[in-house]
């Protein structure tokens, strides 16, 4: 990888230890991905926030570097482990809470916007077409590349943080043009968001960096988010390119049989003791739709609804949160189903969800059973 004289000097440590470390990360990432140079980015979105995933090593590392590190470009943040407004309802231990707050504090000290959201593409304005960004959250990277005309690789927590500090990222892979040699053909009729989640999961297993995808009809936000979340969960692939692709592309059908295979892999329970909605977090449109669906109905069991804090505030003003709480929903901002410490196999056997991404982590990280249902089915079966 070619570095400018100034970049070389920073890598040698002539501009301080923090910049040296950040350059070391970008050079290592760039060499590993065959980048030719570094390019400026306008926005970084960081993962590595939830104490449940980064642990003591992450907390100590962030605390250490936050003394001197400052981000250079607009930088937003993934969800953490809880919502401080209602954490006392969930029996989390003191150590978890204080370590999580230390992580929050470290990021804020570095100048990061405490968005605690996995849907930055939905709560912030999108920069102009072709803008280079550095998104570490997989569903957000896929959404940015596929639906928002932005350019990012599927960054690691470390490459995104180093990119935020330096304002540059290695120029490789999806930052350039990409011509996938695989086309996935959507063959399932009457898809709902669960179908699109399974399609994404299937595509992520097959694709390497990107896939062509054909046969999609009109999709709403819930469905596009489900598809991006599904893909981000199952592999390294980080972009859908819409269309049939070149004639020599390998064509692979996503049909009823393939869908059943994904369903059988992730659906491990007949029913859940708890419902979760949101992974990715719900945006205002989905909250509005949910409030409409729940008019005059109430959940017969616990239902956790995850959304960004900004959306929670908007929803409160409009009156949606009242409506959802009346229907029995627990509304949680700043956190998400995915890798949540608030759901434990000690008190829950199985969870009902419409999220493929949520299902994957509930099954593999939380170790609970998963019952997959579309939102319409959840409302029909679980409310009265």
């Amino acid at each position, binding site marked *: 990888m070619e570095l400018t004289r100034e970049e070389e000097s920073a890598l040698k440590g002539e501009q301080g230890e923090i910049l040296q*470390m950040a350059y*070391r*990360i970008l*050079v*290592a*990432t760039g*060499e*590993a*991905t065959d980048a030719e140079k570094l390019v400026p980015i306008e926005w970084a979105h960081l993962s*590595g926030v939830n104490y449940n*995933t*980064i*642990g003591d*090593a*992450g907390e*100590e*590392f962030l605390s250490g570097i936050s003394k001197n590190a400052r981000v250079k470009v607009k930088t937003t943040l993934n969800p953490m482990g809880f919502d401080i407004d209602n954490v006392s309802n969930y029996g989390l231990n003191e150590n978890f809470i204080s370590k999580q707050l230390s992580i929050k504090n470290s990021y804020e000290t570095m100048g990061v916007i405490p968005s605690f959201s996995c849907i930055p593409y939905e709560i912030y304005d999108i920069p102009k077409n072709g803008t280079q960004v550095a998104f570490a959250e997989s569903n957000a990277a896929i959404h940015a590349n596929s639906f928002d005309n932005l350019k990012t690789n599927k960054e*690691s*927590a*470390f*490459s995104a943080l180093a990119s935020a500090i330096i304002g540059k990222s290695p120029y490789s892979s999806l930052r350039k043009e990409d011509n996938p040699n695989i086309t996935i053909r959507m063959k399932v009729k009457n898809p709902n968001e669960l179908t699109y989640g399974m399609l994404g999961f299937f595509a992520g297993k097959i694709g390497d960096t990107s896939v062509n995808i054909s046969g999609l009809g009109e999709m709403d936000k819930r469905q596009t988010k489900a598809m991006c979340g599904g893909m981000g969960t199952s592999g390294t692939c980080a972009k859908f390119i819409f269309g049939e692709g070149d004639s020599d592309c390998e064509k692979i059908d996503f049909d009823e049989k393939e869908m059943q295979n994904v369903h059988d892999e992730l659906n491990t329970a007949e029913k859940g003791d708890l419902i979760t909605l949101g992974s990715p977090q719900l945006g205002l449109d989905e909250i509005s739709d949910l409030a409409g669906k729940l008019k005059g109905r109430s959940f017969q069991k616990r239902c956790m609804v995850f959304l960004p804090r900004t959306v929670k505030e908007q929803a409160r003003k409009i009156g949606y949160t009242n409506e959802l709480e009346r229907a029995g929903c627990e509304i949680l901002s700043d956190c998400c189903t995915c890798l949540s410490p608030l759901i434990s196999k000690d008190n829950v056997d199985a969870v009902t969800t419409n999220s493929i991404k949520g299902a994957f982590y509930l099954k593999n990280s939380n170790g609970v059973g998963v019952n997959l249902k579309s939102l319409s089915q959840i409302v029909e079966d679980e409310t009265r």
Partner: protein
Amino acid sequence: MKKVLVSGKVEGIVLKSENPINFLGTVDKKTGIISDKNHDLFEKSVKDTILVFPSGVGSSVGAYTIYSIKSNNTAPLAMICQKADLTVATGCALANIPLITISDEEFSSIKNGMNLSFDTDSSNQIHYQ
């Protein structure tokens, strides 16, 4: 060497694994000892070795494990892989542990217990016997 991911100058004794390493959960952060019974380095310590292995696998959070073993003074002096993966690359970058990749031929000719040295600034040769 094929690529220099994290530069540096080292000399030490080779600890070689034929298996990939998942740093998260396989390497004890305090002692640097491999704790996975199914791994060919089970019960061996990576501390102060030149760790030679095919590549890293598993969660990217494993990069923090590499940072932790360095902070606990139980890290390898350097790592040498056949294939660069992002977890090991970013982990070594965080911890400032020299990391290079080598050809398959070189990988097969490096044996456990050999004395090995390289200096990425002066040449792209590695020396071992």
